């Protein structure tokens, strides 16, 4: 009985949609099993059934051979199933040790007071067993995202989790942090833990998975073992058709400089950054997480003020006091973090897409709903947003689809300069290609695009020029024809790469 988890013919309906249709899935002891599929394919639903947040309409679920359909998340946790999501579920103002042991701290029998020494020592032991370097007394709010996820893993360990689910854990991590995370995952695998790993980054899946199961449109398409893994086959299974190219970059006539940034500096973030962005150009901004790219983008967009340096738009010097001004000038910024997409969660897709441009449909203050809807529909179709319709409230969309709505909003704004910060992060293959095509089309229309990305293949595939940032400084500029992975990576790593 080396099957930790076994799901048979799981069916789940939501009003109007069949989310899962007779899905089989199993997880062996000491295995890392990846779950891949487009956004909205049903992966999250499957995971939620495993963790007890949802219950299946029909089908069987066995945990270590015993029937188990959990009524709530706590029940699954008590049975050794732990899940780690992108947003950590931790107590920010409390220490790591307290987070691990909240609710079951050791107490002295008579006085009922908490044995603090034991608490910190036990926490330290767990931390050591993972071979990481954290201080159990550190407050969680002082930790980086990667460290918070480590704490979640440690929590799972302390609860003796046999099954660990990692839902897009690498989205906000640097390459180093991802390697670290994988090292820990392999360690856990060696100890017999079963890990379900969900990711959109196929190279990671290839790196870490023992088996890969593909879900498409609520059905299980198939399961491949490590040996059978092959990009084209995998993509075909995910999308149902062969994707000729992920990076549909067309040759576009590049015009004169639209935006010029000169010696821009902000203490602690970036220093003396200068570059130009031309009409019709896609400028890729590469660098490690923390290199300062987002900070530069935000300064251009007016969210933060530059301490020195100048910005020129169409040759004229401009002062961007706030983002409203930036928008007026035709600068758009798509944030990398979902919380900053600028979506009004309780409103529907149409409203979210048209919020910044309502004036276009409003004569004398009266909104022309038909025009509004048509515009929204255009982008809805363009970006292939998976939803029950334009009226669906954004809060109930999957993360990837929320991002699409945000992109649609900026596109609807007809901005001249688009700053896209990790635009395809957390997005599935098919949509990625669509977004890239869109970028290409927009460039063709004469827009200038500054694309910040940590995915080197994307940078190389889509950019006309690449600028690389390292620790706040712009260290390299590479033209399209001359760009290679090594060149970009070396520049991004700075001295460390040598």
């Amino acid at each position, binding site marked *: 009985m080396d099957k930790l988890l076994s799901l048979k013919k799981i069916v789940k309906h939501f009003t109007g949609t069949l989310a899962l249709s007779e899905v089989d899935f199993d997880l062996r002891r000491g295995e890392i099993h990846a779950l891949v599929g487009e956004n909205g394919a049903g992966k999250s639903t499957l995971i939620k059934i495993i963790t007890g947040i949802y219950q299946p309409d029909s089908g069987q679920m066995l945990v270590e051979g015993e029937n188990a359909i959990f009524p709530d998340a*706590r029940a699954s946790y008590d049975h050794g199933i732990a899940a780690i999501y992108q947003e950590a*579920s931790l*107590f920010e*103002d409390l*220490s790591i040790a307290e987070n691990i042991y*909240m609710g079951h701290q050791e107490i002295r029998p008579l006085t009922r*007071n908490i044995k603090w020494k034991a608490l910190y020592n036990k926490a330290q032991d767990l931390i050591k067993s993972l071979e990481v370097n954290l*201080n159990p*007394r550190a407050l969680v709010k002082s930790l980086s995202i990667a*460290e918070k996820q480590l704490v979640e893993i440690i929590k799972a360990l302390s609860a003796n989790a046999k099954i660990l689910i990692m839902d897009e854990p690498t989205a906000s991590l640097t390459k180093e942090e991802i390697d670290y995370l994988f090292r820990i995952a392999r360690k856990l695998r060696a100890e017999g833990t079963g890990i379900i790993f969900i990711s959109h980054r196929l190279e990671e899946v290839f790196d870490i998975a023992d088996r890969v199961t593909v879900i498409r449109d609520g059905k299980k398409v198939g399961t491949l073992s490590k040996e059978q893994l092959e990009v084209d086959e995998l993509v075909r299974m995910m999308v149902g058709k062969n994707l000729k190219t992920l990076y549909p970059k067309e040759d576009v006539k590049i015009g004169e400089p639209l935006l010029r940034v000169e010696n821009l500096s902000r203490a602690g973030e970036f220093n003396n950054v200068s570059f130009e962005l031309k009409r019709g150009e896609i400028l890729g901004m590469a660098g490690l997480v923390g290199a300062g790219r987002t900070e530069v983008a935000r300064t251009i967009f007016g969210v933060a003020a530059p301490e020195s340096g100048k910005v020129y738009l169409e040759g004229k010097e401009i002062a961007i006091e706030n983002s409203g001004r930036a928008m007026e000038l035709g600068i758009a910024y798509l944030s990398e973090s979902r919380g900053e997409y600028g979506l009004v969660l309780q409103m529907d897709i149409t409203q979210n897409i048209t919020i910044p441009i309502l004036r276009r449909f409003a004569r004398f203050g009266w909104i022309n709903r038909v025009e509004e809807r048509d515009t929204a529909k255009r982008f809805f179709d363009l970006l292939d947003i998976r939803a029950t319709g334009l009226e669906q409230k954004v809060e109930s969309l999957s993360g990837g689809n929320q991002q699409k709505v945000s992109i649609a909003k900026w596109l609807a704004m007809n901005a001249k300069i688009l700053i896209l910060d990790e635009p395809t992060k957390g997005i599935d293959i098919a949509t990625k290609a669509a977004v890239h095509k869109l970028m290409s089309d927009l460039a063709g229309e004469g827009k200038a695009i500054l694309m910040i990305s940590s995915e080197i293949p994307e940078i190389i595939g889509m950019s006309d020029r690449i600028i690389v940032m390292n620790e706040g400084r712009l260290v390299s500029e590479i033209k399209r024809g001359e760009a290679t992975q090594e060149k970009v990576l070396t520049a991004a790593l700075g001295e460390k790469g040598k």
Partner: protein
Amino acid sequence: MNNERYRGTLKNLIRRREFGIFIIIIVVMVLVGLRNPTFFTSDNWKDMLMYVSILAFISIGQMMTIVTGGIDLSVGSVVALSGMSVGIIMRDNPALPPLVLILLGTIFGLGCGIINGLLIGKGKVHPLITTLATMSIYRGLVVVVSRSRWVVYGDITKGFRLIARGNILGINNLMFVAIIIAGASYYFLNHTRKGREIFAYGDHQDAAKFVGINSTRINILVYALSGMLAGFGGVLWVSRVHTAQANTALGYEMQTIASCVIGGVSIFGGVGSVFGVLLGTLLFGIILNALELIGIVDFWKLSVQGFVILVAVIFDAVLSHRVAEQMRKQRRVFDAE
């Protein structure tokens, strides 16, 4: 690892904040003393400390509700209701020992608090709305219970008067009691599971539910405690001022909230310290006392109260913004070493 520094930074900050309040207390004391030397007389201090002592432990109760992300607006009314009820019982039964009266008042307060707790914990009514309503209801009951006949100086028995005036171990009763309650609260909140769960719940309700923290129980607990302390305080209050009226402790909840806010309790929940609340209460008490000594009309007291809360909250917002900025700038990419 860098974490040491962050934890240090934060712990440092709390210490620095408390130290800051301490400095402000000294400064205010000096300023007021210069303006009116009566400030430093032992009579004045005795009076002020008696006032501050009651405010202190009721504020600690308030702190517990705020730490869970809620608030208790009914404490002023509970003080009045408990005080009035006990005052009347005392008037009609002068032979009853003071300790029994104290116990009764505490139980009345506990009852009021449990009602709040049930409405919030079980009924899932928002704490603000709940306690806003009970604030009025309990206040109304004060009039009903008294049948429009207030408790006056003549009604107070000697024994009852001694509750506030007496001394234990050389310290005024009220101060003594405040210190004991502060110590017990500190212990409860920082060294027991339930106490830590209160902070966890206030910090992140969903995560708390996931580790088995029962939200209903936590809510009932904190509001019951708040009510109980207010009820207890009500008896002591009437003993101190020798009277119970319909407007006893009117608006008192604002003072407890001000004390908490000055003392570093976060309105968003999850953060707060007993020591901070004590300092906050002391500072607030000194300010009130100062206003009286300088001759400022009662009228302005209310404005000053509000002003003080505003200043404290703005200060906190600016401070935490700075800290967040600092932490973010210092944070290096996780070192894989």
